[in-house]
């Protein structure tokens, strides 16, 4: 009897924990949607901000976030994938590689504001890129690197060794084996990781704080050296600066809703890839 009671309490508490978590998630979505939905209209997506941020739209911030994210991935994907291929396929197995791997993974734990400061010091000042899309993309890219490397490596390791052996046994070179056999098999897994890091990068605020973002631009960026508006920073700015808190708060919720939707949509694509991969493997 006592055993069953313990079990009942155990099950009840894990069930309750799940319900609370779901409730919190639901609250966030509901709260943001309820407060932000009213400002969403065609103009909000297509116009620049007007009248000291109290009217008009946030199109430049959407465009800016888009550019920054693309830039980060264009920089981080080839670098991270190459790194993962080296670690997984080429490196001599041993303590040195494990140290390298641990160092890379530890990068993921560095607070994002530290990346921001690094970006300011190196890209903005030292390389002289200024506060720009380029500096912001590079900083975000470095942040995304550990995640891209980790997920790519995981995807590469999941490719059965028997594929590699079979490929080498018919006289393929190591490189041909990687390019034509291992990478295609690992691709869905790699893409899943990349897409998830896109989601994370799109929502980051601190790394672009000093390197790319600005509160207001008159129009759209015209080169990689332009500073840009970006959704996460725009939310921050709307809530901390300006002279019309009430109107600005509404717009901030609108921006949040867009950002939330963006990240969910990106995750949905990742889930779709993972699902397809599972089907292929079964």
């Amino acid at each position: 009897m006592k055993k069953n009671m313990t079990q009942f309490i155990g099950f009840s508490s894990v069930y309750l924990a799940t319900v609370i978590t779901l409730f919190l998630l639901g609250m966030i979505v509901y709260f943001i949607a309820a407060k932000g939905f009213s400002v969403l209209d065609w103009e909000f997506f297509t116009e620049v901000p007007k009248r000291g941020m109290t009217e008009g739209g946030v199109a430049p911030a959407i465009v800016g976030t888009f550019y920054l994210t693309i830039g980060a991935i264009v920089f981080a994907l080839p670098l991270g994938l190459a790194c993962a291929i080296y670690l997984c396929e080429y490196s001599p197995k041993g303590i040195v590689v494990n140290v390298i791997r641990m160092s890379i993974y530890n990068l993921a734990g560095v607070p994002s504001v530290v990346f921001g400061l690094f970006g300011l010091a190196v890209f903005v000042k030292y390389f002289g890129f200024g506060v720009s899309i380029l500096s912001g993309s590079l900083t975000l890219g470095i942040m995304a690197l550990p995640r891209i490397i980790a997920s790519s490596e995981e995807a590469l390791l999941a490719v059965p060794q028997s594929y590699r052996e079979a490929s080498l046994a018919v006289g393929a070179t190591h490189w041909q084996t990687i390019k034509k056999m291992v990478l295609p098999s690992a691709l869905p897994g790699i893409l899943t990781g990349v897409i998830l890091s896109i989601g994370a990068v799109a929502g980051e605020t601190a790394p672009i704080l000093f390197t790319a973002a600005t509160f207001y631009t008159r129009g759209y960026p015209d080169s990689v050296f332009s500073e840009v508006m970006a959704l996460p920073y725009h939310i921050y700015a709307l809530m901390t600066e300006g002279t019309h808190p009430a109107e600005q708060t509404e717009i901030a919720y609108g921006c949040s809703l867009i950002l939330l939707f963006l990240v969910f949509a990106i995750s949905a694509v990742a889930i779709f890839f993972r699902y397809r991969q599972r089907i292929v493997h079964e």
Partner: protein
Amino acid sequence: MNNEMVRIKAENVNFYYGQKQALKNISLDVYQNKVTALIGPSGCGKSTFIRLLNRMNDLVPRTRVEGNIFLDNVDINRGQIDVVDLRRRVGMVFQKPNPFPKSIFENLNYGLKVNGCKNRAEREKKIISALQKAALWQEVKDRLNESALGLSGGQQQRLCIARCLAVNPEVILFDEPCASLDPISTRYIEELILELKRDYTIVIVTHNMQQAARISDFTAFLYLGELIEFGLTEKIFTVPTQKMTEEYLSGKFG
């Protein structure tokens, strides 16, 4: 037996996984157009040995090989040899059927492409010929573009044999090719191996003594990394010179 042509000659081969010695001073000859079987209990080193012949053990970290293995009098572990070309010439069929997760056609097309066969018509000809030699053509000719993973285990293994044949090897290594197959599929593979020995030199690792007796010309018995006895299969199985061979073959240990 000595006027046969030797294709592969192993001389005093030692092999180590880290500190552990897996093969001790193995010397044996593999003859042209013959089937050479390696038998012995699990862990005796027979798979390790066969994987040395196309240098598949290069993929295993912290391993070391000593001694010489000659293919047509060229030492395959020394300087001049191109290991990629070696693996093309010395094909391998693995224990578990391991077709690529691609179509039946692509499984064979892959090897031809990586070996630089640019002409598609020529590749198709070779693919059909390899599937015929592997006794698979009749079963797959109408479904070449379907996934190889949809084939039965026995068909998959014959596809792997065809994949190996497509790139025109000289020697074929079979590493327990029937270990995961049912008796009927096993019989197909055995008949196939007997067919193939007319054109190829064959080395087979097998767990199954009867299989060695049925299909091989020469048998090597390994135990704990040592070559206990090597000779004509009919002699090994009827009048073995070593007591240990006799005991193993009669099932006293295994």
